């Protein structure tokens, strides 16, 4: 019989105690894997969302870069605009690869729900916008070819909600304009899924906004110093520059603060599990002091006893850790749903991106923590004096 099977059988002697300790370790492993997976998933999702916007810099009118917020609060009436000739001024910069103009407009539709709601339309350039958003694929149809066509392309969810297919008509409430649906996009997992795209010229004409834009999407050339480029953009009159790289770093900064708190909680969970391990193994050692005395009197060296107790700890931690990892992978979707419910903003795509590397890291942390916890009980067991131990049992 080797040392591993002795250690394993020792654990089985107190099944409930061993199971509860392993359960505690499993819970801490579950928390650890889920949080590590969340950190990675959130960052990946955020990167993907920003990359999927197709441009790195957004130029808007000074003082009101928040079209979406304004649309929600005031419909189309509170928006501020930049002039269309800004496109030429921006394109003249050597760092610029592509520019796409956008005009967002909204109308209040009293026939949506009990109290009405704002219906928003995004006017985009038929030539440059599809070029910048190459990842968008069509379920049916295609982009409009003419910037003045009375046509619409619907995101996947917008089409489902409006129950529109290619060839159907779409009514813009308030101004009672009819446009024909020429394309329905496949689900992209981005904000484009819920967007109704119209040709920019059509939006300018329908809403009497000739020569006006709400935003310019700018894609810069590779290896461009975006900070320097942004500073130069501020030389243009009355514009606000929104750098998505900056937005990303700001959000990640906020997330990092929350992450620090959450990781502290995970650390506490691991500490509690370690305390449980120390308690269980130490109790086991104390109960088995006479038995350890007999083993030593039969020739076992202190190192043998140390190894036996330490192996028990390792088995307990490995079993609990593996169970916790399995549990976290099993409940990833559930955890994701809970996180999405509680967080005000979550990026699209998988929010918990656990993989074998995260699982291996968590297992290593748990086993290392467990072995650290097992040091004292194992040392104490190795120090047992055979005669004193046997005498204690006699008494």
């Amino acid at each position, binding site marked *: 019989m080797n040392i591993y099977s002795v250690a394993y059988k020792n654990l089985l002697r107190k099944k409930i105690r061993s199971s509860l300790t392993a359960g505690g370790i499993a819970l801490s492993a579950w928390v650890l894997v889920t949080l590590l997976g969340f950190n990675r998933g959130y960052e990946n999702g955020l990167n993907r969302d920003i990359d999927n916007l197709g441009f790195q810099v957004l130029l808007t009118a000074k003082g009101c870069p928040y079209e979406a917020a304004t649309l929600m609060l005031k419909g189309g009436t509170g928006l501020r605009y930049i002039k269309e000739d800004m496109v030429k001024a921006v394109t003249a910069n050597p760092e610029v690869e592509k520019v796409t103009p956008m005009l967002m407009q909204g109308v209040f539709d009293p026939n949506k729900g*009990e109290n009405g709601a704002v219906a928003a339309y995004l006017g985009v350039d038929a030539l440059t916008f599809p070029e910048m958003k190459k990842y968008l694929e069509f379920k049916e149809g295609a982009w409009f070819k003419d910037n003045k066509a009375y046509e619409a392309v619907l995101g996947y969810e917008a089409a489902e909600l*409006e129950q529109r297919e290619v060839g*159907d008509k779409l009514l813009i*409430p308030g101004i009672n304009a*009819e446009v024909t649906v020429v394309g329905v996009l496949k689900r992209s997992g981005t904000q484009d899924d819920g967007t109704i795209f119209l040709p920019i010229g059509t939006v300018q004409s329908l809403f009497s906004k000739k020569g006006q834009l709400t935003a310019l999407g700018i894609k810069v050339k590779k290896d461009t110093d975006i900070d320097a480029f942004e500073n130069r953009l501020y030389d243009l009159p009355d514009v606000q520059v929104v750098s998505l790289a*900056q937005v990303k770093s700001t959000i990640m900064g906020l997330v990092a603060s929350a992450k620090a708190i959450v990781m502290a909680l995970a650390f506490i969970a691991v500490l509690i599990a370690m305390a449980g391990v120390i308690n269980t193994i130490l109790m086991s050692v104390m109960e088995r002091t006479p038995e350890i005395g007999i083993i030593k009197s039969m020739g076992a060296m202190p190192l043998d006893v140390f190894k036996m107790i330490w192996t028990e700890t390792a088995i307990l931690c490995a079993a609990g850790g593996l169970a916790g990892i399995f549990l976290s992978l099993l409940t990833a979707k559930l955890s994701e749903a809970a996180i999405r419910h509680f967080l005000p903003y979550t990026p*699209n795509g998988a929010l918990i991106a656990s993989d074998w590397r995260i699982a291996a890291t968590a297992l290593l942390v748990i086993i290392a923590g467990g072995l650290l916890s097992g040091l004292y009980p194992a040392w104490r067991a190795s120090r047992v004096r055979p005669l004193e131990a046997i005498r204690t049992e006699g008494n």
Partner: protein
Amino acid sequence: MRKIIVFIFLLASSAVAFAAVGCDLNDPDRDIARLFPGSSGYKTVYLSIKTLGGEQLLERVESRLGDKFQGLFETIDVPYTLYEVYKSKVIIGYVHGVNQKGDYGGIQVFLAMGTNGLIKSFYIQRLTSKAAKELRSKQFGAQFAGLSLKDFKDYSPVTGKINATSPLSSIKNPSPGSGKDFEHVLRAVKKNLILMDEFVYSKGAK
């Protein structure tokens, strides 16, 4: 910088605003209390033709409707949300909505029904139409109160014609010449009543 973050959040959340694709009440707590003033609560049940009877049920529903389910929005696996309305522990009625393709957009027609299968009230939650104001008016909706599935038996959504002797003949198109959304609403009501009959009223008989 905080404002920029809010902007991005809102930009991203615009997708969420369109995410609810089923036919659920926008605000069930408020809407159920309004449709059933004496109610004390409700339970939400999710149903689909696929799980309740599959192809056979779909064929029966289409046969009773007198029209085929069409397009991507009337498939066998469309989820239907049924609100069972309670007063204490007793069911006093149901609220059920269906999606219907209209001339210019999706129409969501909800019926509040008593346990006897009669329409208690009619509510168009969502409608994009040139006749939206008229079709969503209280006067138009009030005409459906007291009707049941048998009143729609002879109504054909394909022809859109209403017999002069039918109880439906009293329901007039409030905006003739504004397209076919009046007919679409009637089709939605008939479809809703048939589904309610299959899901609730005749469930035990089959």
